């Protein structure tokens, strides 16, 4: 808690799809190096929140600032901004016609115009870090879900983003491969990466989070340190939500 530098600032952002208000004047700061976990019932706006941050969804009002620069200003170059914001999706979305290595180096080569040898070297180092070096020439269809998701993570990482967004990245995985993905994220968190994680893995949330926010119906209902939140949620809505998981565990 010595130095806190605000990396990402959301000021009163509003988002609706037609008549449906998904985010209601939501404000949120994320500090450099912080790991923020967003939980909440489905349809609460968690995924939309992430998608607004990297411009996949336009917002109706409010401001988003990254490094003090307003990225929601008109005329902003998203292809510049998104180099600083990595995002990993639930469905991996590797490019099926490219090998693992080509998936990873595509953006460094085409967007960042890095030289190939350099990009390949970085890609191989990252593959090694997540234990998938032997899969570099495989096609996505030849990988398990957990392997695909690890590739998707380093495909974002190689761009050297300042912040990483994780949108329920383990939700589509078989239970036995969830762990390998969470381990990669945990290691990433420890290395000081700023992360916003949307997840339903409560144990993991507790282990990885510096701060938890509970989102319901487009509003931040509760914001707390993980221990406090999971032990004694202050709001009714949050405790009811957490109870669902406890009940499931007892069953």
């Amino acid at each position, binding site marked *: 808690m010595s130095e806190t530098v605000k990396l990402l600032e959301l000021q009163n952002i509003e988002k609706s799809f037609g008549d449906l208000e998904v985010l209601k004047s939501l404000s949120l700061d994320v500090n450099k190096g912080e790991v923020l976990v967003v939980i909440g019932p489905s349809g609460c706006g968690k995924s939309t929140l992430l998608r607004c941050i*990297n*411009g*996949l969804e336009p917002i109706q009002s409010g401001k988003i600032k990254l490094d003090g620069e307003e990225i929601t200003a008109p005329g902003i170059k*998203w*292809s*510049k901004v*998104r*180099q600083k*914001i*990595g*995002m990993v*999706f639930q*469905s991996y*979305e*590797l*490019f*099926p*016609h490219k090998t693992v290595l080509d998936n990873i180096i*595509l*953006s460094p080569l*085409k*967007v*960042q115009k890095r030289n190939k040898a350099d990009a390949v070297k970085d890609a191989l180092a990252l593959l090694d870090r997540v234990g998938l070096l032997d899969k570099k020439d495989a*096609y*996505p*269809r*030849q*990988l*398990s*879900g957990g392997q695909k998701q690890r590739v*998707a993570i380093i*495909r*974002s990482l190689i*761009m050297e983003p300042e912040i990483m967004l994780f949108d329920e990245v383990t939700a*589509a*995985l*078989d239970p036995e491969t969830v762990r390998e993905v969470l381990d990669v994220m945990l290691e990433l968190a420890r290395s000081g990466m700023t992360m916003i994680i949307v997840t339903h893995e409560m144990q993991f949330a507790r282990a990885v989070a510096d701060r938890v926010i509970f989102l319901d119906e487009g509003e931040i209902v509760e914001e707390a340190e993980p221990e406090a939140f999971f032990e004694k949620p202050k709001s009714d809505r949050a405790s009811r939500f957490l109870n669902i998981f406890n009940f499931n565990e007892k069953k």
Partner: protein
Amino acid sequence: MQDLGIRVLFIGNNMQRLLLGLWETVQISLIAVILSIFLGIILGMAMTVKNPALRAVTKVYLEVMRIMPQLVMLFIVFFGLTKAFGINLSGRVSAVIVFTLWGTAEMGDLVRGALISIPPHQYESGAALAMTKLQVYIYVVIPQTVRRLIPLAINLTTRMIKTTTLVVLIGVVEVLKVGQQIIEANRYTYPSAAFWIYAAIFALYFLVCWPISLVARRLERKWQFGGDAK
């Protein structure tokens, strides 16, 4: 003498005539296929545009082309146009027009299918990797669409070649017609000519279509990546 009927294939320039007939078929098919691919791409892209009027028109066109037997279309273009408007088209031109109209519909549907089969998340993950719209199309969407499309387009080509046998009915002298002429001419000297000639025609079609479908299958296997082994 019965089993010497096969000799009918080699007397005079019969084989050469059959091959020339085949060339006629292949020519009509190839021209129609090339036009169909080109026009079909445009039609397919038009079908993905969210414009109700455009959608309705393309839909009707597609249905009509698929429901109407190609033979009926050939008759309409070859005989109908002449009777009704005095437009006199040669059999070849009529054939190319009809097969292009039909092929465009088929190809258009294939293109549309390939385009919408790219999940929206593919566009988004490209965007999330900081690619511009154009880069997403060039490196992500188009390569996948083309890979899906090529084997299907090749299959369409073989179907086209087979269906062009119908042009015999509007008087185009292609392989089948040549075959019939040879059979007629040798009715008394080689009574079994019909068998050998049609067998030869079968073999010729096979030799043309088989390599094409082999290539299609090859490409399909090489490029099948869609299956999501979770």
